[in-house]
C-alpha cells in the first residue's frame, strides 16, 4: 500500500467514524464534533488527491471548506445553547417531538 492509498484509507476511516458518532452518540455537542471529524476526513482526502495530481484546485476547495466549517459552527453553537436553555438537556432524545 503506497502513501496515497494509506492516506485515503485514513480519510475514509475518519469519515466513517464521524458518521458513527453522529448516529450513535446522545449528546448534541458530541454529535457536532463528529460532524467536524467527517469534514476533516473529507479535507484529508482532498489534500491527498490534490497532492497526488499536482492540482492546486483541491487546496482551494479545502480553504472554502474551512470557511464553511467556521460559519456552520458559528450558527450551530448558538442553536445548541438555545436548545439547552429551553429544555435543560442536550440529550437528542429530548427533542424527538421535533420530527414532523
Amino acid at each position, binding site marked *: 500500500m503506497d502513501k496515497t492509498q494509506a492516506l485515503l484509507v485514513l480519510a475514509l476511516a475518519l469519515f466513517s467514524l464521524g458518521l*458513527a458518532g453522529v448516529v450513535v452518540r446522545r449528546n448534541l455537542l458530541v454529535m457536532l*464534533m463528529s460532524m467536524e471529524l467527517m469534514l476533516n476526513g473529507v479535507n484529508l482526502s482532498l489534500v491527498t488527491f490534490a497532492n497526488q495530481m499536482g*492540482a492546486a484546485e483541491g487546496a482551494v476547495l479545502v480553504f472554502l471548506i474551512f470557511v464553511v466549517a467556521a460559519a456552520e459552527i458559528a450558527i450551530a453553537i448558538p442553536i445548541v445553547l438555545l436548545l439547552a436553555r429551553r429544555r435543560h438537556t442536550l440529550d437528542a432524545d429530548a427533542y424527538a417531538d421535533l420530527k414532523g
Partner: protein
Amino acid sequence: MTWLLANLETILLAVFGVSALAGGVLVVVLRQPMRAAMALISTMIFLGGIYGLLGVHFIAAFQVLIYVGAVMVFMVYVIMLLDPRDPAFRRRFSPLLFPGAAVALGLAATLIRGVAPGTAPAAAPAPARGFSLAEFATAFLNQYWLHFELTSVLLLAAVIAAIAVIRVARGDHG
C-alpha cells in the same frame, strides 16, 4: 540510524496517521464532552502534521489556526457553559448504537475496498507531483476569486443568523 533518518518521513506519517485515527475513535467513545473535544483537537493537530509532511504547509497552518484556534476553542467554551449534571453527559449512546455502528462499519469497509491495493489497476501509481504555494495562489486569486468572495456572503449570512438566534433567545421577536 541511517535507516531511521532515510525513512523518517514515512515513519512520522504513520505515527501521525495512527494517532489521528486513535483520536477519532476516542471522540466517538469517550463519555465526557470535554475529553471528546480534547481528542478531536489532537486529531486535528495530527492531521495538520500530515498536511505539513505532504508539503502543503499553508493548509497545515490554517488547519491549526481555524479548526483548533477558532472552532474548537468555541466548542470548549460552550462545554464549560453547560451543566455537567445533564443526563446526556452520563449516558453515552443512543438506542441506535448497534445499527449505527453496523452502518458505519459497512460504509468504511465498502469505501476502503474501493481504494485497497487488491482492486487497483495493474499500472504502477504515478509519483505524487505536489504543487507550490505560487501555483495555489494563482489558482486561488485568478480562477476562484468569485468563490472566495461568495464565502464572505456566506459568513455575513452566518453572522446575521447568529444575531437572529440570540434575539429569539431573549424572547424579542420584533
